């Protein structure tokens, strides 16, 4: 029975233009948000047109392309003298020109990658010349100049860099958007069933909690698909344009977010569905769902105002164990690495238990309000006699 209800919801919702277009647009926006700054930013200018002056000794052409970062490359144009190289830069036929001795002409700020690479190559070339004059063999010079192992930086101050912070914000926003979207879907879906009166036929065979469970499962699945697509788009885009390095905690954040998403969804989805059945019109629904929006945006605000600035503070600790807020707060704390290991499973357990408990209570209120005409309050529905 639950499966049949869920299948209907999936089919009727997933194939609706709104869902498909909404998902496509969201994915497109996310991809654009990541890809565009990288592609348009000066540092991302991957193709360098460089002018050289004839007779300049540096064997820079072969070396430069080998030493630039992987997504950069360079092409060279040779000019007769400094003056013609200079005017080529100003006219924009080349991005930069290297003139004797050791001067890089640019129009606007030079790409950091290009500048450091040329700098290093020039130093190496000078050094190689000096060492050859000192009588060293080529092999000896190569050994002396071979790059040391990369510098390892260990930050003892405990300050995190920006990336985990970004991931934490991203996880919270995704969850809020996901709950908000499916909450609205459930709200209007439940209202439609009640106002079209089809619900009386449905409950003549199915039990109200079965209808509720079917709806919640289907909507959660749809939202999971949506969020999975978004996350996959983010990771794939990032892999292609290399916009930001992913912190080590990314995998953990995804895993915790997924579990919390499911538990948090059950919690909110059940309540949103009930809110829909309490209402008798869409305006009503906005007000019966008011407390839910309040809880959800409250949790969202809490992430920004208390959890991100102080992820291990007492407020963050308390909110970790409240089912309405935990789904938004725990992924953020995991991303920041500021959560004791035992708190993650404990919070997940509390949220799941809270969600199941809510489903049960919601089932009762749902059953009491399905056949009621007009608008009910939460309190009125709780006191009303449930059907079956």
């Amino acid at each position: 029975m639950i499966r049949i209800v869920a299948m209907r919801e999936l089919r009727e919702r997933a194939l609706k233009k709104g869902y498909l277009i909404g998902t496509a647009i969201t994915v497109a926006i996310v991809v654009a948000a990541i890809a565009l700054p990288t592609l348009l930013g000066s540092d991302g200018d991957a193709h360098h047109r460089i002018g050289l002056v004839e007779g300049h000794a540096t064997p820079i052409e072969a070396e430069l392309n080998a030493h630039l970062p992987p997504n950069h490359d360079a092409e060279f144009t040779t000019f007769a003298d400094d003056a013609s190289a200079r005017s080529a830069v100003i006219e924009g036929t080349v991005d930069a020109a290297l003139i004797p001795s050791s001067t890089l002409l640019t129009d606007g700020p030079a790409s950091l990658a290009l500048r450091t690479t040329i700098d290093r190559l020039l130093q190496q070339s000078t050094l190689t010349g000096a060492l050859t004059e000192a009588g060293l063999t080529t092999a000896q010079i190569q050994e002396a100049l071979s790059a040391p192992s990369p510098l390892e930086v260990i930050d003892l101050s405990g300050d995190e860099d920006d990336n985990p912070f970004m991931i934490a914000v991203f996880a919270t926003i995704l969850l809020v958007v996901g709950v908000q979207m499916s909450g609205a879907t459930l709200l209007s879906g439940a209202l439609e069933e009640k106002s079209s009166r089809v619900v009386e036929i449905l409950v003549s065979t199915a039990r109200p909690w079965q209808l509720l469970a079917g709806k919640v499962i289907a909507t959660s699945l749809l939202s999971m698909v949506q969020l999975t697509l978004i996350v996959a788009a983010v990771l794939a885009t990032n892999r292609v344009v290399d916009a930001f390095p992913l912190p080590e905690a990314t995998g953990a954040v995804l895993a915790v977010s997924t579990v919390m998403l499911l538990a948090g969804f059950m919690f909110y989805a059940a309540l949103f569905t009930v809110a829909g059945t309490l209402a008798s019109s869409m305006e009503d629904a906005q007000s019966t769902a008011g407390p839910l929006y309040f809880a959800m945006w409250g949790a969202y605000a809490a992430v920004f105002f208390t959890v991100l600035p102080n992820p291990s503070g007492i407020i963050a600790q308390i909110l970790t164990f409240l089912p309405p807020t935990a789904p938004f707060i725990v992924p953020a704390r995991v991303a920041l690495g500021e959560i004791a290991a035992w708190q993650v499973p404990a919070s997940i357990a509390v949220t799941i238990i809270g969600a199941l408990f809510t489903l049960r209570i919601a089932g009762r209120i749902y059953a009491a309000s399905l056949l009621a005409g007009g608008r009910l309050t939460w309190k009125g529905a709780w006191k009303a006699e449930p059907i079956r």
Partner: protein
Amino acid sequence: MLAVNGLTKRYGDVVALDGVSLIAHPGRLLGFLGPNGSGKTTTMRAVFGLVRPDSGTVRWNDRPVDTEVRLRFGYMPEQRGLYPRMPIGRQLTFLSRMHGVSREASMAAARTWLERLGLIDRVDDQLSALSHGNQQRVQLASALVHEPDLLVLDEPFSGLDPLGVQDMSEILREQANRGATVMFSSHQLELVEELCDDVVIIAQGRDRLHGTLDEARSAATYRNVEVRLAGGDTFTPPPEAQVISATNGMTKLRVPVATDARALITQLPPHATIEHLSFAAPRLTEVFRDVVGASVEDLEAEHAAEAAPEAGA
């Protein structure tokens, strides 16, 4: 066989059901008749577990009615409604599957019904794209698509035009003929009278009369007599008769049920030519007034005056 026994239900001070009992038999059409507000919908909802009675039982084939038993029931609520934006073919299939019928059988049954209703070329249309009359047909099909053993319809004739009433009557008769137990409610007694095999009359939350249609009609304590004599001759009615009207030569009388029709004829003037003579049990509306002591219209007006919405219709 559906057996409802002694259902009571109060909503605060309002008594919705006051000991309703009825029995519906397979292969027969039971008319559940009474004014609006007499407890018909509440009783029908109780059959589907949508109202929890304070006392009394509902049994199907001598079993208590549970979720599994209800899968074999079909219900058309008074408040009609299906998914307005779902294609009608998928909608019927879904409702059939909700009654435990397999996917393939449900799809086949949905097509069969849409063909029968002449809507097969609109199988992928949303319900809301259909005309009002066609929406009502789909609504009826949604109660029948899983071939229920018990069919319960709440005011199926309300809002139908004469053609719709005829279609509905035919389909209900067909369902009874295939062996289903069919129960429907109506507050328009004269409209459905001829369709019923059995009748239960309900007023003020209690069943007042049940039996076959003939038994119900003969429950009245009088018979209706109509006499017209050629040439507008008049006659003196017997002393036990009550004259209802005498216009255009037609005299309408009410005589006690024990009155012998032949004795009545002998009281007419011996040489008068009888143009019209009828001796009949009263119509159900009159039976109702006789049994309950108030007309359907009176009770509906009374109910509307003290209207407690949750008491149901």
